[in-house]
């Protein structure tokens, strides 16, 4: 596994500066600070980002997108996450669904949805997990059965982030029996969250926050035209996007806004050596992880699918985020009040929600199995 380094080019640095300026302006206008993709959705903010051309950036020009590179998207995303921007609303569409449409979508889907993603006019969420299907995602039981002109969908999804405001839930479901091979017969349906038979109810995160939901499908009619990609090809479609889902800066920058706030206080002080050392160690890990994550974006631009590298970085990055929180607690010291404003409140929130970092998007244990399998495969190939 190689993570070749290629620093940002002049053009990419210019884009970075533009995003920095934009975020400074947003901050001056009173935009709050949140923690990574846990931050509360802010549709107005997402539309302003879209207006700058920074949503759906990698959608090719022929599909009405800006046709920019994965690295340019990386630059925008890392700047926003580091600044604690509320990017949740456009996050799923920008990171995943757009790629799905480009790679697997029908012409109608591409024509209808891609320009709307770019415009910040449509929000998606991901309906994969179910009460009995977590890590073993292929065991999903939500079923769609044939009916006149489409499908009747029944079942239940859980932990569906953003279903309370999204327009569509990209739903992984069974469209034909498994017959012993559970990866076969799965499809992805685009389900309108306002359709009859769809019920969304909140599940509160451990800090009381309404981030994800339960979604029930009760004889929901889904027209044929809303099958995403190929019927029966759902497993392949879902797994082929993992490199996009897992490698990003969201996997190591969630607590950067907390550290950045602490830094604002510390940089005016005369710090003892042990504090400088502890900070320096954390800085070093940020630099290394960033370089690895950037190298994955470069690989995507070369047309590679570094899914295993992405799993490896996500595991390393999310473990680090949890360690960084422990370090921050030591540096800040004392009891934390989650209702306190500023640094203390943010840190309290990070402590409480840290367990989610190593779960969402595939648990670290499962990611490690992915990496192990690949190591074994490459050993067999070289033997």
């Amino acid at each position, binding site marked *: *596994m*190689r*993570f*070749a*380094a*290629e*620093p940002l080019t002049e053009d990419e*640095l210019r884009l*970075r500066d533009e995003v*920095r300026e934009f975020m400074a302006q947003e901050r001056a206008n009173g935009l709050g600070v949140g923690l990574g993709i846990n931050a509360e959705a802010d549709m107005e903010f997402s539309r302003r980002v879209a207006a700058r051309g920074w949503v759906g950036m990698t959608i090719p020009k022929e599909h009405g997108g800006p046709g920019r590179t994965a690295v340019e998207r990386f630059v925008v995303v890392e*700047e926003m996450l*580091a*600044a604690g921007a509320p990017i949740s609303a456009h996050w799923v569409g920008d990171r995943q669904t757009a790629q799905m449409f480009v790679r697997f979508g029908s012409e109608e889907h591409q024509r209808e949805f891609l320009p709307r993603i770019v415009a910040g006019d449509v929000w998606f969420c991901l309906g994969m997990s179910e009460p009995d299907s977590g890590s073993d995602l292929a065991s999903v039981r939500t079923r769609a059965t044939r009916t006149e002109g489409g499908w009747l969908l029944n079942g239940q999804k859980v932990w569906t982030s953003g279903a309370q405001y999204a327009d569509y839930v990209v739903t992984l479901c069974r469209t034909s029996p498994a017959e012993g091979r559970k990866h076969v017969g799965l499809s992805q349906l685009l389900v309108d969250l306002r359709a009859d038979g769809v019920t969304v109810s909140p599940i509160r995160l451990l800090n009381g926050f309404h981030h994800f939901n339960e979604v029930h499908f009760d004889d929901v009619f889904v027209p044929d035209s809303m099958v995403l990609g190929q019927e029966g090809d759902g497993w392949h479609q879902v797994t082929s996007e993992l490199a996009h889902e897992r490698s990003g800066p969201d996997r190591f920058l969630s607590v*950067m806004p907390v*550290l*950045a706030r602490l*830094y*604002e206080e*510390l*940089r*005016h002080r005369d*710090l003892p*050596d042990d*504090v*400088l*050392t*502890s*900070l*320096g*160690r954390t*800085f*070093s*890990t*940020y*630099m*290394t*992880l*960033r*370089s*690895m994550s950037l*190298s994955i974006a470069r690989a995507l631009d070369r047309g590679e699918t570094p899914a295993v*590298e992405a799993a*490896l970085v996500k*595991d*390393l990055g999310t473990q680090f985020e949890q360690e960084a929180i422990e370090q921050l607690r030591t540096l800040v010291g004392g009891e934390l009040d989650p209702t306190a404003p500023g640094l203390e409140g943010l840190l309290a929130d990070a402590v409480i929600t840290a367990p989610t970092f190593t779960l969402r998007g595939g648990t670290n*244990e499962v990611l*490690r*199995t992915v*990496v*192990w399998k690949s*190591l*074994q495969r490459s*050993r067999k190939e070289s033997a």
Partner: protein
Amino acid sequence: MSDLSRELFTALNDIVTARAARDGHEAIATWSPDLWSTLDDQGYTSIDPDEPEVGLAEFCAVATAVGTHALGLPLVEAGLAAWLASAADLKLPAGLVVPAVSTGDVLTVVEQDDDGLVVEGTLRRVPWARHAELVLAFVETESGRRLVALEPLDVTEGANLAGEPRDTVTVERQRVGAAQVGSTEGVDLREARARGALLRAAAAAGAMDTIAELVVEYAGQRHQFGQPIGAFQAIQQHVVTVAQAAAATRAAVESTVAAAPDHRVLAAASAKVTLGIQAGRLARSAHQVFGAIGATEEHRLHLLTRRLWSWQDEYGTQHEWSHFLGERLVFPEAPGLWEVLTPPHPAVTARGVGESAPW
């Protein structure tokens, strides 16, 4: 990787692999005059940093090959010395020259005249001093620090955790002629140590890659409870930890090589800290996978892990370089944390985290 660095790596790899196939691994763990002269003939001991196509990538490639094979010869040191000498305009004779910059010891001047200097002091942990014709050390003079080349006259032998020579050179009122005193321009001690640190990290990345191959192989071969131990998830997780540590260290090295010279000491510091963090994780997991056999002298694993335990402390410990990063990156006029962590930024450049001498 540049074409030249790939060539250097591959050719060195081939030489050492052929040698190990003939003599076993024992032969590459200790000083071998015979292998040294082969490497000398092939030009590996005298890669010239002044050649336009030779740069940091090439020296790192050689260091990585040294680590990959746990090669017990001072190739990395010869390279670092050549760079230091070139930056300070010192002409070196043929023969082994090693740098004495790992610990940061600096000699003092007892007398100074037109013919040169008389210096004294103690240089600790000098790699391979017992085999060297000359050592390069910094001397504190009235006009700043100078690099000097001097003969190691009084050598007390010592070793690192891997048994590689790390000697003490005691310098007592020793005369160094004007021709052996470098110009004031050139590198400073911090840059020199950052280079050493980077090369150690590059070598460690090579050693880690070899360990990663060994653990994957062993997990597939060794059977317990009727199946390969790699069937157990606990072992799979150890193996992944090893691969991950190797990948992170190599990424940090490559990103330093690719960094702008303005921020290279910063990047090298970060690579050395990464090595410090990852070496411990990796060695723990690797030894766990191998069980008792991996804890024996006859097994190859210790040739690699003992080097990692040594290299992580040489040219500055993880602690020291972490402190450097903290001290350089936390300052009142800073534009913000994220900005200082993602150079280029003029405020960071102004903190002296770059290199004055190109390679």
